[in-house]
């Protein structure tokens, strides 16, 4: 597993130059959070945006790799493609989880300072898990796109794929409504409330796993 730490070290060291941007980003989103009307809204916004932000920083490593064509260089090391891919997924998932933890702590503290009472940690954990799922979905689509088309083109393709998915889901609801079909969505909240953390974690794991399989298939056959 030493290789894993080597590749992640490389990515983290590359992100050193991103330090200032990260601090500015955190400050902006913490301030944006305060624009919410309710204290809970402030906490939710901060938790979600920090999860999203940290996840995006993980994805930024692809830009550095593409710029220096590091991908090709790394393939001359005693590593195989599976190991290289695993390291990227560990980094991306890890940075998203760190973002969620930072988000929970930040929103918890801010809400505590504003309301002068201890907020429900459970609420913020669910919000952060929801944030991870949302960010996970974006990353899960983006990763195979990046491996297929590169960091720059992959981002455009990712938006196209995401738009198609949104249109498809929206289309299903629209057709359902028009045809007076009662979709089970309205009955879901009770189930969700009881099993929400487990459902969110499971859904996130599934989408990352599917994404990894698709990325591996693309990367395995990719020629540098």
């Amino acid at each position, binding site marked *: 597993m030493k290789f894993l730490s080597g590749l992640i070290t490389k990515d983290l060291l590359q992100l050193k130059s991103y330090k200032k941007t990260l601090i500015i980003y955190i400050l902006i989103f913490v301030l944006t959070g305060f624009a919410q009307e309710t204290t809970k809204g402030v906490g939710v916004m901060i938790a979600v945006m920090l999860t999203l932000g940290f996840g995006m920083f993980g994805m930024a490593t692809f830009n550095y790799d593409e710029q220096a064509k590091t991908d090709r*260089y790394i*393939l001359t090391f005693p590593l195989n493609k599976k190991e290289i891919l695993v390291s990227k997924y560990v980094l991306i998932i890890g940075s998203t989880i760190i973002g969620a933890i930072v988000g929970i702590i930040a929103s918890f503290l801010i809400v505590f300072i504003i309301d002068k009472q201890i907020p429900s940690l459970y609420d913020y954990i669910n919000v952060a898990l929801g944030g991870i799922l949302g960010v996970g979905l974006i990353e899960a689509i983006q990763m195979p796109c990046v491996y297929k088309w590169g960091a720059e083109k992959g981002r455009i393709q990712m938006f196209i794929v995401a738009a198609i998915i949104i249109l498809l889901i929206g289309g299903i609801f629209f057709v359902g409504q028009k045809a007076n079909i009662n979709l089970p969505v309205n009955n879901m909240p009770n189930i969700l409330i009881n099993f929400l953390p487990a459902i969110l974690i499971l859904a996130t794991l599934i989408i990352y796993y599917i994404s990894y399989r698709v990325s591996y298939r693309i990367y395995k056959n990719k020629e540098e």
Partner: protein
Amino acid sequence: MNNSLEVKNLCKKYNGFELKNINLNLPKGMIMGLIGENGAGKTTTIKSMLNLIQIDSGEIKIFGLDIKENEKKIKEDIGVVLDDSFFSEYLNPADINKVMRKIYKNWDEKLYDKYLEDFKLPKNKISKEFSSGMKMKLKIAVALSHHPKLLILDEPTSGLDPVARSEILDIFQDFIQNEENSIFVSSHITSDLEHIADYITFINNGEIVLSKTRDELLEKYGIVKCSKSEFEKIDKNDYVKFKVNRYEYDVLVEDKAKFKRKYEFKIIDKPTLDDIMLIYIKGDK
């Protein structure tokens, strides 16, 4: 196992370009230079050797082992310099050390520090601020610091001034002194290879045109400079190719001594690798 590198019948087809039946043998302790114009297939050959692309057919063995089956084991003992790819320029040499010590089992931090010192590379300055020569020296320092037995270098001297080139060529000469290490180097700066390479392989349009020892090429081959009427007296089988210049013909012959014995030409020039390359590419038969 006397060869560090063996390539047998390597074929790789792209849309509009094809590597055809590439055969190479690089003995231990030797330097082989791969020459050819841009787009001739030098980089594709190197990518095939490193298993960066999937070859259509053929066999590549490094240290007697098949690269596909023993990729990780082989790559522990190879140092690679690629012309256009390396670490991000936002990393400094000290950062690169932190990464590489976790990648290679034999990574030698002291040796790496020694190279940085010898090459006068500051450890804590990001490579974005380095000159082209310094960047190349950093790539070479990294390639050498895990005690590789084979260096595979793609255009290691391109874009460098003569002083930096000469320093780098000296490093390569030192590397093979133990007679166990070998270097495979592609370059279109043929004068560099004339100084260091033991073998020269010339690739054109995806095919190996010739692969010989440097001495055989530079000492045995010759260029006959003659008029049209003189040229017409030469048997087609006695020359490799010819090129028509404004006032004379340049005729490339494989064995100038033999040619001298058969014909009465007094001036047969010693060719450079550039001359040979040019007549092969631009000349006729």
